[in-house]
């Protein structure tokens, strides 16, 4: 009984354990430098684009498609937004809004070919990859830099320190001036605590509703253990972020966090989300159940276009410049995150939480290997192997499960 319970949950949380293991390994290998507050901050900032793209890519993959164009589209939209601010001096908020609209249009372009002309997404987005890379080079013929401060703050800024600082209760444990002993930002702490409380309340409510419908639920002790682990994880991250010298909570973290919540909701609670799984799991079955599969396909790509635009804004803001070469290999990072996070290559399976953890694994690998000064070519090779092993491990364990 216990063995079965552990086995089942191990499978479910295996990928999270892998993330924790990788963090611990790199924390030791880098002698703690991976987790010093400023690096944690940089980790969030550097990998926001992967998280954002992985959310859209997840739905694309669940529906049984693929999108190879997102890297090029990031460059293209970044170039257009940059051009508007740099050459036409358009207000940055307007420029960002225009970028998001262009993202929707690019998504509609891909969606049209995939959903209504029935060209395989691989081909459509391969064409898009070339098309938008080319257009990006046309628009950003030369690098454009020097954007308004507001725009640069999207990826580089923190939330204002409205609650002030409180002294670090653990300061005594560290040497004076240690990055771990700094005062704590009140707002960041507040957000972390709200996060923990929200998480516990939400899962408690879900459990209550299951019980009221007579559905079997796991033991309460297991739930409490899960709460404890998650709370500790959030607390640690909150603690580290709140004493960052640059500021408190990164704005981009809020953007990513809100998007994660929205997409977790969309995939699990909306008709559209359910239709995405239905189309990916059995396209003909979905069609014969009255699902408008073409409209679902179209919607998925429009959504991907929107998220690509968000990633483009974040990437351009972080670089502080619009470059035609931006977004190289972004599509591969996003796709790898989804697969590492347990999405099925054959469609129909995948969770937002999995994709997020997959993206974090990629991010920690990037960061850790960089701190260790591993050559970027070797970094790429290592990431490739991690992807291969993660997916084959998942497939092998599934096959064994099916036999048992």
């Amino acid at each position: 009984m216990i063995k079965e319970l552990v086995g089942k949950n191990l499978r479910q949380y295996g990928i999270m354990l892998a993330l924790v293991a990788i963090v611990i390994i790199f924390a030791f290998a880098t002698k703690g430098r991976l987790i010093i507050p400023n690096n944690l901050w940089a980790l969030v900032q550097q990998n926001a684009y992967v998280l954002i793209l992985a959310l859209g890519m997840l739905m694309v993959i669940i529906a049984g498609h693929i999108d190879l164009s997102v890297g090029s589209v990031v460059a293209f939209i970044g170039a257009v937004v940059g051009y508007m601010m740099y050459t036409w001096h358009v207000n940055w908020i307007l420029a960002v809004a225009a970028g998001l609209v262009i993202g929707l249009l690019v998504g509609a372009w891909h969606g049209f070919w995939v959903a209504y002309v029935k060209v395989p997404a691989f081909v459509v987005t391969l064409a898009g990859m070339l098309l938008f890379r080319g257009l990006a080079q046309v628009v950003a013929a030369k690098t454009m830099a020097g954007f308004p401060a507001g725009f640069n703050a999207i990826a580089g800024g923190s939330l204002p320190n409205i609650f002030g600082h409180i002294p670090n209760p653990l300061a005594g444990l560290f040497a004076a001036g240690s990055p771990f002993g700094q005062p704590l930002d009140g707002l960041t702490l507040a957000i972390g605590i709200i996060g923990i409380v929200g998480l516990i309340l939400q899962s408690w409510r879900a459990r209550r509703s299951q019980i009221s419908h007579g559905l079997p639920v796991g033991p309460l002790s297991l739930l409490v253990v899960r709460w404890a682990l998650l709370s500790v994880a959030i607390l640690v991250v909150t603690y580290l972020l709140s004493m960052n010298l640059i500021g408190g909570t990164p704005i981009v973290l809020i953007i990513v966090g809100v998007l994660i919540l929205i997409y977790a909701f969309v995939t699990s609670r909306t008709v559209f989300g359910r239709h995405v799984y239905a189309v990916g799991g059995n396209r003909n079955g979905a069609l014969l159940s009255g699902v408008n599969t073409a409209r679902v396909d179209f919607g998925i790509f429009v959504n991907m276009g929107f998220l690509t635009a968000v990633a483009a804004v974040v990437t351009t803001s972080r670089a502080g410049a619009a470059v035609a070469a931006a977004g190289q290999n972004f599509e591969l990072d996003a796709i790898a995150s989804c697969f590492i996070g347990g999405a099925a290559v054959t469609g129909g399976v995948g969770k937002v939480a999995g994709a997020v953890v997959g993206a974090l694994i990629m991010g920690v690998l990037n960061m850790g290997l960089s701190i260790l000064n591993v050559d970027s070519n070797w970094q790429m090779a290592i990431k490739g192997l991690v992807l291969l092993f993660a997916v084959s491990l998942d497939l092998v364990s599934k096959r064994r499960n099916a036999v048992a």
Partner: protein
Amino acid sequence: MVASGSPDATTFQNYCYFNTSLSESTIEAGHMDNDYILEMRGITKEFPGVRALHDVTLRVRRGEIHAICGENGAGKSTLMKVLSGVHPSGSYTGDIVYEGNICNFKTIRDSERVGIVIIHQELALSPFLSISENIFLGNERSRLGVVDWLDTTRQAKELLEKVGLHEDPATRIADIGVGKQQLVEIAKALSKEVKLLILDEPTAALNDDDSDNLLNLIRQLRAEGITCIMISHKLSELERIADTNTIIRDGETIESLDMHGDTDHSQEHIIRAMVGRPLDNRFPVHTSTVGEEILRIEDWTVYHPIDTERKVVDGASLNIRRGEIVGLAGLMGAGRTELAMSLFGRTYGTKISGRVFKNGEEIQTRTVEETMHHGIAYATEDRKKYGLNLIQTVKENVTSAGLNKLAKMGVIEIEAETGVAEEYRKELNIKTPSIEVPASKLSGGNQQKVVLAKWMYTDPDVLILDEPTRGIDVGAKYEIYTIIDQLADSGRGVLMISSELPELLGVCDRIYTLSEGHITGCLNRDEATQESLMTLMTLDKDDLQ
């Protein structure tokens, strides 16, 4: 007894061994003019939970055309799969005696090596390769792995000449019609030096000219000494061509008729032998209260999606009334599923024409959504492929067709959804550990209940149920019949498609028969028998006019 001059002699001995204890009867038979090329003795084949063949005997004379007929699911194709090694030796009991030797075929290649070639109903040609490439697929004319194209073309030409197909061997398969493709299959068989050719419903997809052409070719092959086993539903065709006709029912040999002899081999006799199943009380007692007409289809015609010149459904008209359970009977390939799917949002076929009336008013059914909007539901024949999403949960499957009823502004009310799924689980007695397990974990009967629940939740006026009890056990069947009765009692109309005639007779108020795309009759429950239905189901197009 092995032909020592045959190039296959050595390989032959790898799969077949000389049987010293060969039964007396065979030896005796050899002395008479009845020289048997094949004897299948006491073949029994079981699949988990099902006995597909039980002690089947089949004796085929050298150089004859031997027909095998039986209802859908009688075991004809399984028997041929046993013979050709698709079901390998060891997975069945009984002996295959071919050319006097007991054979243990492990794969199709083994049986082909000794000259047994099977041509399946769904042709196994590669559409974008040429005729000559297809003929020698897996059997390439080559030296050291390099294909000799000259030799390939030359030999392909000779073979095409033999089967009377006047096409360039370089033509792609996709560019020739089904009739010609069938000839390519035969040419391919000839290239393997076939001695025993098995054809599974060879004329099912052919028009009259192509059928005649093919039957003539089979006669010609017989004259050249090639023995032929032919599975067919077309009784008039069998009458013209077969020398012997073996009838199989429920996995057992019923009889073998000499089609030239004096014993009764009339179509009526064959039909009786095919359908003579016992009618037992496996059905709930039910009296329908029939009301107004709810759905009418007029002059419904559908063409094949790829072979766009062929009519799959031809001028079919039928109607269903409130509270009525209407049956639709037809043999494989008659166009039952095609009729249902073309009606249900045009999910099958091209050039669909005809009119549909709901409660007397003409409606359009161009998409699934539109058809569902008119209160029509269709539970598919293949529940795993089309009816369910196996990786989604029972709950998600139950609500998948009626999800919009559970949503406000596109957001699903999860608690209400759970309530709905639980309600159907109890109402239909779906046996599952929980509504949160994937549908793949359920047994066939319970999966079928999930499919029914899914459509019941859309609250349709008309339900089309395509083979609702296929592959499920007797207990679950009874439960499904009860559900169907309840659906009719609630004032809905039900159209039930089934291959099991006793089931149609036990459940339906009225039964339409379909043959080669035509509605050939409509019998009320009290006037219908298995024989009368089968007679209508095997009517030829020509008999209609």
